[in-house]
């Protein structure tokens, strides 16, 4: 009947501060190791944003080249000034190139 009593183990309760309980979500790029932990992901990488800006730049340049074409007086009609190569060919081309670059930026991985 002699049962050796084991000394009672003390329960150790580890308390964490509020800060330790929650992991603050950090901004992680897509495809990185931490991206699988459920942390907040950025949709695009730096390169994608760079291409977006380049596309916007092309479009801006296109519209800039479209400016002008006013006639010096209402009685003067200078079609070569209104329908110049710069305004009706080069400028629209740059705008469309800009749009194409934007689409490329969306799909680039």
């Amino acid at each position: 009947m002699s049962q050796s009593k084991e000394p009672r183990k003390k329960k150790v309760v580890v308390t964490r501060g509020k800060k330790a309980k929650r992991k603050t979500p950090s901004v992680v790029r897509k495809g990185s190791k931490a991206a699988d932990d459920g942390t907040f992901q950025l949709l695009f990488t730096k390169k994608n944003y760079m291409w977006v800006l380049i596309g916007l730049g092309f479009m801006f340049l296109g519209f800039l080249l479209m400016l002008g074409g006013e006639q010096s007086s209402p009685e003067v009609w200078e079609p070569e000034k209104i329908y110049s190569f710069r305004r009706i060919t080069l400028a629209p081309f740059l705008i469309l190139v800009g749009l194409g670059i934007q689409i490329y930026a969306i799909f680039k991985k």
Partner: protein
Amino acid sequence: MMEVLKALVLGVIQGLTEFLPVSSSGHLELARVILRDESTAELGLLMSVVLHFGTALATVFVFRKDISSLFSRALARDQKSVNYLLWIIASMIPAALVGLFFDDILDQLFNKNLLLVGGMLLITALLLWFGDRSHQVERALGLKSAIIIGLAQALAILPGISRSGATISMALLLKISREEAARFSFLMVVPLIIGKMSKDVLDGALIAPDIDLLALGAGFIAACISGVLACQWMIKIVQNAQLVYFAIYCALVGSTAIIISQI
């Protein structure tokens, strides 16, 4: 500064109404009347092209995974993906033909005609009502249904008929699943918008002498951001069978437009 604010408002309206089933062209016309926008026809067209570029990019952004997988599978000769691309092309034909041969007549129709816009908004309301209440069997999409949905898209060139509303309602009436109806409706319009806008740009029609670059930029960004949000919202609306609310809205706006046009 007023021009930039106007462009922002127009951009947000274009972004929201391009995807929500309430007719973007009709609402843009209404907004121009309300904002007392007296810009020239050339500037109006330029702004319209820029705003449409914004919404086209928004669609590409939202469906980037679908588009990417569709093309990569089609290149790997997956027959389903090849067929899907062919159906998209087939669905574009009616609207492309209407746009090519009736462009001038349509331009006149778009010219601040409130009575027409109001009447067409009432038709949109009917389409949405019946589409949303159609019994679901979930048939698969095919060439025939793609062409019929394409005809609905051609009808939506009229101001006041919502493109997304008409195409999604038609797909639902053809018993195609809600998810597929929304997906196909938005994917089919991307090449059409880009083609139409590219035609406008390369035609040399965009030669307004006094371009406000800041206003154009503001409109483009506003259309793009509001377009992304509206597109995602619309997919949920279709899935949750909530088109009926938009039918009521279109009926109210359409009736108001008709009343205003008669005063």
